[in-house]
């Protein structure tokens, strides 16, 4: 297929997934902001948790350019509705729909209609209507739209190259975003070190798990004691957990191998993907904890980003 079309499909998928994960990230933040908090800096009362999504998404600089103050309202506006923030839910849905519009021949009409509808509905939201609806309800709506799109795609699309580029984009973005959501906990301050393992700690981890729809799964596998070690194992190494990094890499690597079958220049890409996949497939939880969860996630983010660049070089924007 045309490189340009593959690129549009890839990014269309990434934008929808990003919108969903933005919603999940904001959901964690919203839940943790409801927890009791010790003020660590005067003037930042109740605002601390709201800095976390900015930091983990790498959007802090962009945010503080136009917003000197940190508050729930300004962060929500910035990450949901801001048309100048390319990662806002608004911009992601717009970009996904534009990409779909540009490659309508490659997707089913149901898929386009679905994205078009999501965009038309998003356009009607402003801060007041989001508040009226309830922030949690709105974030739930975003997640539902993403589920719908995935369902329509999975249910109607021919398993052709276009389909594989969509799956590739979805899982690459999911892997990246999940690593960032997991990293949230690193930045969430506990009132004091004495609180490690205490109630606030528990609720923060629970919030992280709930945001990736992993809370019930955790309880099913491990019972109700939440430890960082087990959260890391569940969300990084277990491949039966659909949003885990391992599971994402399964899809990514399989898709890259399939796409590379008829391609003469994808050796390096397949190697890099295989290497990252092996790291997760054969990884041990102890090694992650020893390195430090935060350090591990930072390294992973860098590798997944390189993988994205290589995919672009090989399939999406090759130079002849």
């Amino acid at each position, binding site marked *: *297929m*045309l*490189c*340009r079309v*593959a690129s549009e499909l890839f990014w269309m998928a990434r934008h929808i997934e990003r919108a969903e994960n933005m919603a999940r990230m904001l959901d964690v933040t919203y839940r943790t902001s409801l927890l009791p908090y010790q003020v660590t800096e005067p003037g930042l009362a109740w605002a601390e948790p709201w800095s976390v999504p900015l930091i983990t998404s790498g959007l802090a600089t962009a945010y503080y350019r136009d917003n000197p103050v940190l508050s729930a309202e300004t962060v929500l506006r910035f990450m949901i509705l801001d048309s100048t923030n390319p990662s806002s839910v608004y911009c992601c849905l717009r970009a996904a729909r*534009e990409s779909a*519009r*540009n490659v*309508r*021949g490659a997707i089913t*009409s149901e898929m*386009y*209609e679905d994205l*078009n*509808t999501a965009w038309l509905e998003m356009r009607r939201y402003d801060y007041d209507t989001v508040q009226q609806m309830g922030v949690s309800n709105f974030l739930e709506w975003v997640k539902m739209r993403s589920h719908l799109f995935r369902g329509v795609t999975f249910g109607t699309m021919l398993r052709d*190259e276009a389909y594989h580029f969509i799956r590739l984009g979805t899982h690459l973005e999911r892997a990246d975003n999940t690593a960032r959501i997991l990293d949230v906990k690193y930045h969430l301050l506990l009132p004091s070190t004495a609180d490690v393992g205490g109630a606030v700690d528990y609720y923060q981890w629970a919030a992280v798990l709930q945001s990736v729809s992993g809370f019930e799964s955790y309880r099913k596998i491990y019972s109700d004691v939440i430890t960082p070690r087990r959260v890391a194992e569940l969300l990084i190494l277990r491949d039966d957990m659909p949003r885990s990094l391992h599971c994402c890499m399964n899809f990514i690597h399989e898709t890259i191998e399939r*796409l590379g079958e*008829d*391609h*003469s220049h994808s050796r390096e890409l397949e190697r890099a993907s295989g290497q990252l996949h092996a790291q997760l497939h054969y990884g041990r939880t102890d090694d992650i904890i020893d390195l430090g969860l935060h350090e591990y996630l930072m390294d992973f983010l860098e590798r997944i980003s390189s993988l994205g660049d290589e995919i672009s070089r090989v*399939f*999406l924007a*090759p130079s*002849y």
Partner: protein
Amino acid sequence: MAQGLLSSYRITVDAPMSRLPYDEMRLADGGIRPHYQSFAEWLGQTPAGRIAQKREEAERAFHRLGITFAVYGEDSGTERLIPFDLVPRIIPAAEWAMLERGLKQRVQALNAFLHDIYHEQRILAAGRVPAERVLGNTQYRREMRGLDLPGGIYAHIAGVDLVRAGEGEWYVLEDNLRVPSGVSYMLENRRMMMRLLPELFATQSIRPVQHYPDMLLKNLHEVSPAGEDAPTVAVLTPGAYNSAYFEHAFLAQQMGVQLVEGQDLFVQNDTVFMRTTHGPQRVHVLYRRVDDDFLDPTAFRPDSMIGVPGLLAACRAGRVTLANAIGTGVADDKSIYPYVPDMIRFYLAEEPVLNNVPTYQLGGPADRGYVLEHLADLVVKEVHGAGGYGMLVGPASTAAERAVFRERILAAPGNYIAQPTLALSTCPTFVESGLAPRHVDLRPYVLSGKTVNLVPGGLTRVALREGSLVVNSSQGGGTKDTWVVAD
């Protein structure tokens, strides 16, 4: 209730026309023409509520599918619906047979003309068309001189605009040989009608049109560069922000070929390739919906961002076929239009089946004198205009507007032609108050490959404002499904 729609349907004289326009459905004495009987019966039997519901369904379906037509100059790029009217425009089979003969004849002659002016120029030597009009025309492309095209075809797709002024009285309003558009609306309108009102198709034999994309693809295969068994065809579009993008994407999908933009193609060794995820893939035939000027920045406009550098060279090397060929614009120019009937005589030794609208050429003093005397009765058009702008509709103009236009004419008389105002036929159309007559035209699409072919009917465009003669969608016109029925 729906009976009321029919009985309240009145054909009226549009001021300042002086005679009752021909109505496609109703006779002057109030009776229904035979080919509309079946439809009129259905209208009589169907509750108004159901009709209203169907109209709403059509609008919603078109909108949901994102079928839109960006209107130039209006809130840049706003998406707007081209209104679709539920009442079909029906043509009896015998009448269509005549039109079909005339259209094939006309397009054959036009292709012969194009071949001739880019080769021996016999028609110019014979003095049948002033050489200056052709060779001095901005659309005449010297780069095409002497180039032999597959089948000698230049206009593979021609949209010929027809109007009816009376019983059996048809005229060709203009030819469109560059990038004629609208066929997707013809196809979608039919699909919509069959979905919304299947009962109508059960009671009448309406000739199908859905095979248009197959016919087009076959023709495109037939004009591939010599020696190609399995040619690759692609549709070249300016991109998603072009007003006709929906049609480009639609046709590519219906034909099962790639939709490409300039940036997806590159030329190497005079051969055209697509950039694909598996490496470069050769293109043999390009159905291009990009104007000549923007096709190749190394040959034409250098500021074009939507063309392909080296495309002209690939054409001249015979390594790629463009449909329509470069340089067809000279033949659909308004200044050449008056000579088309003579082309039919010259190249085919036949009398034209279809007539031109009587046309005055203001470059000549006699015609000019007459026209300036009768500005209030005539339609004056700029020779290089398009889309219904740059035009004076005499009977609908004020004295002030005519004075302004007179000055423009006197400044550059050769830029204008004039035609009598035709009382275009009307067709019943749904309006606020019920069913009312609105002026319509017809654009059939003529395809040329090894043979010349058409699907029955074409796109019927309707002027939605009462009394308006302007049917262009870019100026608020709408469309209807067109039916050719067996008598």
